[in-house]
């Protein structure tokens, strides 16, 4: 048995140097005992002097081991060095060891490392700086902290990154660290009294702590598991916990019992103002009124999940109105019709056949987006007959105010809406239909239909047919204009 003495509690490089020597000498873990400063050697144990000279190269270890070991070496368990050496030893035979989550040594090591990481995390959370202000008003900060493991070295760089412009120190029982806005300096440990007892802002912090707590939600065990009691003695807010818990039931009861009192006069005045404003806008006498009113529509259930109603857009007295199916994902988000891919197809075709786009009003038969949520996407769903019927109210208002001479139904839903019955595009396209009020209706495909055709040849064919339909529309507009 050989006893190896370490100078430091958690210096990985020191441990690695010695472990390498042992490994090179082929000393198995059972023959090695690790001693930390202050610990006595056992009987029959040789001292450091017996450490063999490093001889020859030693094998490499997975990087994962180095990372694990660098963390786990900060654990407070005296058995950590032993375990580390055993794993190192076994890695020579079984390089895959760390991939086996079921191995006992491996899982102990992993647990140790996560305990250290947790301790370091708690340090990040529960260090409480106290300010020391000098005569010039300059603030320095100091904190006393008692970590469970030796995790100061691991955690200090975090504080340096976070409080770059501050001068601060953290004192723990085994080591201290100072930051002067430039470098981290480690020194020996200290005592609680090395740090000021109180801080001027602490009382504000306690005020916040007690006010943000909702007594109706008491969950003591949840609090304790995240903020273990062992850390409490250095948290200025912790002294409030017991009284807050004791008073919680009563505070909750008081909230329940304090029923509504007479509203303040300020409120009464405000309510009247709103009521008048609401009344003033209840009648629809213009396209603008309709545009505003549609946002409150409840004629069918679609309003509930769509973002907003998407009303038509275009000149108030356009000659021609294109009616699509319903807004899609993008239209729903932006609140404008035909801004997505289908809109681009329509615009291109309109321009190609020579219809003046600036004289076109575009809208949809149904004003709200109907969809099926699927993860982070919304899948378009066809509106049903009831929804089409319910939304006809708004389309009629648009037609009534815009008074287009020609209406183009894009796709079956629009045709259904305008004709009041299910319609087949292929049978209706190519010839104008004169409506009761004298407007001329054309029926064609919805541009998104073109987008969905995979076969390029068929796609080109359908696009041509679509454009032919638009040529008819263009000619009809021209003819109507000639009459005037």
């Amino acid at each position, binding site marked *: 048995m050989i006893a190896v003495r370490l100078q430091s509690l958690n210096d990985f490089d020191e441990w690695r140097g010695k472990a390498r020597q042992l490994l090179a000498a082929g000393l198995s873990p059972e023959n090695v005992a690790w001693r930390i400063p202050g610990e006595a050697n056992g009987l029959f144990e040789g001292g450091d002097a017996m450490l063999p000279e490093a001889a020859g190269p030693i094998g490499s270890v997975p990087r994962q081991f180095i990372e694990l070991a660098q963390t786990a070496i900060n654990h407070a368990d005296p058995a950590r060095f032993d375990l580390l050496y055993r794993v190192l030893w076994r890695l020579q035979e079984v390089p895959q060891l760390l991939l*086996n*989550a*079921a191995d006992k040594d491996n*899982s102990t090591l992993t647990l140790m490392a996560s305990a250290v990481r947790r301790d370091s*995390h708690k340090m*990040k*959370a529960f260090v409480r700086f*106290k300010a020391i202000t000098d005569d010039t008003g300059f603030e320095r900060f100091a*904190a006393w902290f008692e970590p469970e493991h030796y995790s100061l070295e691991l955690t200090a760089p*975090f504080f340096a*990154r*976070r*409080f*770059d*412009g*501050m001068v601060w120190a953290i004192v723990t029982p085994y080591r201290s660290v100072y930051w002067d*806005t430039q470098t981290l300096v480690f020194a020996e440990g200290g005592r609680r009294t090395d740090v000021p007892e109180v801080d001027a802002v602490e*009382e*504000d*912090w306690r*005020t916040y*702590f007690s*006010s*943000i*707590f*909702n*007594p*109706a*939600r008491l*969950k003591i*065990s949840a*609090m304790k598991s*995240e903020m273990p009691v062992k850390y409490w003695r250095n948290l200025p807010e912790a002294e409030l916990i017991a009284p*807050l*818990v004791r008073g919680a039931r009563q505070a*909750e009861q008081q*909230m329940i019992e*304090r*029923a*509504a*009192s007479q*509203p*303040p006069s300020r409120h009464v005045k405000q*309510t009247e103002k709103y009521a008048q404003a609401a009344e003033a806008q209840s009648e629809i006498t213009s396209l603008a009124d309709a545009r505003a009113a549609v*946002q*409150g529509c409840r004629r069918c259930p679609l309003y509930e*999940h769509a*973002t*907003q109603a998407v009303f038509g857009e275009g000149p108030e007295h356009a000659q021609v109105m294109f009616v699509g199916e319903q807004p899609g994902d993008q239209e*729903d*988000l*932006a*609140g404008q019709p035909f801004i997505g891919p289908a809109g681009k197809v329509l615009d291109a075709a309109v321009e190609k056949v020579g219809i003046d786009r600036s004289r076109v009003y575009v809208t949809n038969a149904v004003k709200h987006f109907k*969809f099926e*949520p*699927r*993860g*982070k*996407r*919304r899948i378009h769903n066809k509106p049903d007959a009831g929804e089409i019927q319910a939304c006809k109210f708004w389309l009629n208002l648009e037609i009534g105010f815009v008074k287009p001479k020609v209406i183009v139904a894009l796709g079956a839903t629009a045709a259904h809406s305008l004709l009041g019955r299910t319609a087949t595009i292929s049978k209706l396209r190519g010839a104008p239909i004169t409506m009761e009020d004298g407007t001329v209706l054309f029926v064609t495909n919805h541009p998104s239909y073109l987008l969905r055709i995979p076969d390029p040849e068929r796609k080109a064919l359908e696009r041509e047919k679509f454009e032919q339909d638009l040529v008819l529309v263009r000619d009809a507009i021209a003819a109507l204009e000639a009459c005037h």
Partner: protein
Amino acid sequence: MPPLTLRRKLAILSDAAKYDASCASSGTEKRNSAGKGGIGSTEGSGICHSYAPDGRCISLLKILLTNFCVYDCIYCVNRSSSNVQRARFSVEEVVGLTLDFYKRNYIEGLFLSSGIIRSPDYTMEELVRVARSLREDHQFAGYIHLKVIPNAAPELLAEAGRWADRLSTNIEMPTDIALETLAPEKRPSEIRTAMARVRGKLDEAAPEAKTKTRTAKPKWAPAGQSTQMIIGADGANDGAILNRAAGLYSGYKLRRVYYSAFSPIPDASSRLPLRPPPLMREHRLYQADWLIRFYGFDVPEIVAGGEDGLLDLAIDPKLAWALKHRERFPVDVNRADRDMLLRVPGLGTRSVDRIIATRRHHSLRLDDVARIAGSIDKVRPFIEALDWTPGGLTDHQRLRAKLTPAPEQLALF
């Protein structure tokens, strides 16, 4: 009346903020003040600096700029008809408090909300001023979460996202009808429009996946957006709540939907259910939400685990689902694919990943699974391992009773 002290304002305006659950500080970009002389850092995952006795993490200074409000939302302490004491911070006061708390390592940043005063634009502008001052005048690199005031001008929203890590707009109620009944001045479509605008800006700021030349776009609300829904103030069931959430996740790419059990408030309207908040229901909804986002469950599946559109309060939603689908079990841990392993009660994503990594080297025994999962009781009836098959256990009539935890005793303090 003498002016309120800063401390008194802090008491009033943090008390007024405590009902908002949407408070976390995680998921933002990594940044710090190193070499810049300022203070503040964010490292991706947030830090909880303290815990209130309600078990909730305190990571941010969560306050209102003011609790004056022109709206009258019945469920809210700050509604205009309530007689709570009112207060208002100045922009400088909030900035000062945030820095003072931050320097002492009490907090991770600021979560600022406000009652609506004068107009949405005016209110939003004030919130933006606080954030701008922290960033520009004080080189503050900590976390900032701003509440979006629906209906505020898009330019203000655009600026808010330049300074804030996260933006949130609360949907408040599971249905539009409930919202309009309980919050008569709020328009659901305006709330959703605000979310849509935030999403639009987030999409613009997102790095394009395909382009190789990654021209650095200006950062915009790197922690994304979230929302809060109040549970139990209206009659909506869990199905309606989860459907609403699914619609919001898919439409606005929310990072989180926070569920907040309705809790009695002082000076409350008689139209509200004044009873202790349904905390267990809230907890189950979070679990369900989690399963939907990370475990491949869909809303109907989750809801079918309970009865009548309500989740089972006695057991977690995954176990509830598994007990109703025993025909899909036991699952062989040495062979099953990831998706199915994720459906085993008691196995989380990390355990599943470790099982898959380990079984490449050797077949797993029950003991191995226990070591990986941390505890085996809930897992055992649903799996097969090298040395284990549950036999009739999976179909045992009393399995549910066996796996239902005994009602928790309230801890004495």
